[in-house]
């Protein structure tokens, strides 16, 4: 229950605050006004003349402009349009503030002008102190003569009134008063009365002149206000035109760059494609060249082996003919000699006819690349066969050294892990 009462009281206080509105501010006209743009404090407005106008240019749209007093009370505001202009005049007791928002595609601008209430004594004071211009927002040059006239007439009027008052008081304070007896000679105060009447007439004329002057000044003020509005409109139109021109300029530059960029891009694409094809061709040529060289080497190696085998064959023929002569006499011995002189079948098969290579199987070390293997086989003047369970078949033309020694040499190679002659 207490909580509900507390909430009700709170709600009532808030509603009261909303009803009272700006009147709950404790600030006076001498305090500055805070300007908030898009709910962020952007500056301040000083009605005393030093900061009577405020302008802001934003890259983004201006959604709202709010005015707050120094004690935080919301005095007025204006919502920005989606696009275009919007103005509002906010009355602050006797003063006024004119708000203007202009939004475009490129951003927004806000103008805030403080328009203090015309004050008679303020005019007089500012006229004599030479600060008349600041009374009407800085553009009162044309109104100054009118103000001066009014100030002078007011001063004159004040002096005359004071003089009259002093005269009346003096007259009232005079102890003897004799009633008028009829003749002018016997009424010594008749002449002052005439003068008073003249003065009164002059006062009346002055008052009429003052009223006319005030009316003139008021109409001039209105004219100035309209002029200010027109100038503000003109400046914002100018901004729009300038920003439009800039946008057009940017667009044109963009299109130029875009057009040139597209051409350059296409050219680059074509060039890169041509380069790629060229590189591919070069790679193919290189690989063919390498293969050609390898084949040439292999052929040279084979030719050399052929020559060696022919030499061996030639050297083996006299032995065979000797063996055939001995056979007639000692066939058994000849056979034994033939048998003893004959190399093992595998070796014959390998070396015989000068067409068969020495076949063996190699297990290469881990991490050995195919390129290394190919290079090694090439250096051996051999060729690779099948791979079976990690064993690579290799055929080479074995040099004229014992097989065991040859195998030892092969095992000595860094990339060779193991060698065998059988599968």
């Amino acid at each position: 229950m207490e909580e509900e009462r507390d909430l009700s009281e709170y709600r009532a206080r808030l509603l009261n605050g909303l009803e009272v509105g700006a009147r709950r501010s404790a600030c006076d006209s001498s305090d500055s006004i805070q300007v908030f743009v898009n709910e962020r404090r952007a500056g301040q407005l000083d009605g005393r003349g030093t900061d009577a106008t405020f302008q802001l240019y934003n890259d983004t749209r201006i959604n709202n402009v709010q005015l707050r007093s120094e004690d935080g009370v919301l005095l007025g505001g204006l919502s920005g349009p989606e696009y275009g202009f919007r103005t509002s005049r906010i009355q602050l007791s006797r003063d006024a503030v004119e708000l203007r928002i202009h939004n475009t595609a490129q951003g927004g601008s806000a103008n805030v002008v403080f328009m203090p209430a015309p004050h008679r004594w303020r005019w007089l004071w500012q006229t004599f102190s030479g600060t008349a211009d600041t009374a009407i927002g800085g553009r009162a040059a044309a109104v100054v003569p009118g103000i001066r006239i009014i100030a002078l007439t007011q001063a004159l009027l004040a002096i005359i009134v004071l003089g009259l008052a002093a005269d009346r008081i003096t007259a009232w304070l005079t102890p003897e008063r004799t009633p008028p007896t009829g003749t002018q000679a016997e009424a010594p105060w008749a002449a002052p009365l005439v003068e008073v009447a003249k003065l009164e007439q002059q006062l009346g004329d002055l008052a009429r002149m003052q009223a006319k002057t005030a009316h003139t000044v008021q109409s001039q003020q209105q004219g100035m206000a309209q002029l200010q509005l027109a100038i503000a409109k003109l400046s914002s139109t100018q901004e729009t035109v300038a920003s439009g021109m800039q946008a057009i300029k940017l667009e044109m530059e963009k299109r130029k760059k875009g057009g040139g960029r597209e051409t350059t891009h296409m050219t680059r694409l074509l060039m890169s494609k041509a380069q790629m094809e060229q590189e591919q061709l070069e790679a193919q040529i290189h690989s063919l060249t390498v293969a050609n060289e390898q084949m040439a080497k292999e052929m040279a190696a084979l030719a050399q082996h052929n020559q060696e085998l022919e030499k061996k064959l030639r050297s083996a023929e006299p032995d065979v003919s000797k063996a055939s002569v001995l056979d007639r006499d000692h066939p058994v011995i000849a056979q034994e000699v033939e048998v003893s002189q004959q190399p093992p079948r595998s070796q014959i098969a390998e070396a015989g006819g000068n067409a068969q290579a020495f076949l063996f199987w190699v297990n290469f070390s881990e991490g050995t690349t195919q390129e290394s293997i190919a290079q090694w086989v090439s250096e051996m003047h051999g060729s690779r066969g099948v791979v079976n369970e990690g064993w690579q078949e290799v055929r080479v033309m074995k040099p004229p050294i014992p097989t065991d020694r040859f195998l030892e040499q092969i095992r000595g190679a860094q990339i060779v892990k193991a060698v065998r002659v059988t599968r």
Partner: protein
Amino acid sequence: MSDRTGDSGRLELAVSTPEEFDRVVSQALPVLLERARNYTKRFMRETGQWCDDTAHEKFTLRWSAEYVERFILCGRSEVPCRPLFLLDSFVAKQHSQPDPFCYHPNLLTPLGRFLDGLVARAVISRDALIALYHHCYGMGPRDVIAVTGLNDSESQRVYKNFQRWRDSGWRRTMNEIGLTDAELDELIGHQERHPQRLNHEAEQIIRLAQSHYRKSEPDHYPCLLRSQWEEMFSEGYGCDYRLWHLVLCMDCVQTAWDLGCNGAITGDKPRVELHVRP
């Protein structure tokens, strides 16, 4: 109820002039406040920030009143419009922002509401901004002028701000936050009995609120190095920056506290010393 229905019905109709808008809206303030409150409550429910207690109810009422006040003054320039639905769009736009208000469970205790309300007010009121130096650090006008290095013209203004805050600003802020006299007395009593504990709690809450509300002014948001503060003080520029940022950043006020008055300040670095009353 029938009055409210009638008010709501008028609000649904289109108005074509600012004067008509003012008239229709001024006659239906309770309806507008209630509608904004419902939307705010729904927003808090949907974002997991709601709890059924008085503190949350007052929180929604406070922000709803802020929305309605802005709507009343800015909405009149949107004519022709239907005021009720314009309010809906206005509140929805506020809630569409990432952080429409500073919410944290710690900010809903009496101490939290007091400090959150003060810092929130400091963002829109110069009186409250200056007074924050007193409520958070126990500084008077001369201390504020010394710490911020203000010139003569600005100094006079500080005295005026303090005076006006004391006369009317503080009371109006407490009313608008929703702190009752009983809650204020409880706070003051707590401060007298356990000042260090309260100051410690206050420091945590102040840092929370400061980091949220400092973002409301991106130009003054960045913290500066001591060398940068030195330059600002010695060159004499950035008066507004110093005044605004130093009270909304505990680290920076401790970094730059002795740079004003050419080092003539005596005493220790500013620490949180909560003062409930002005």
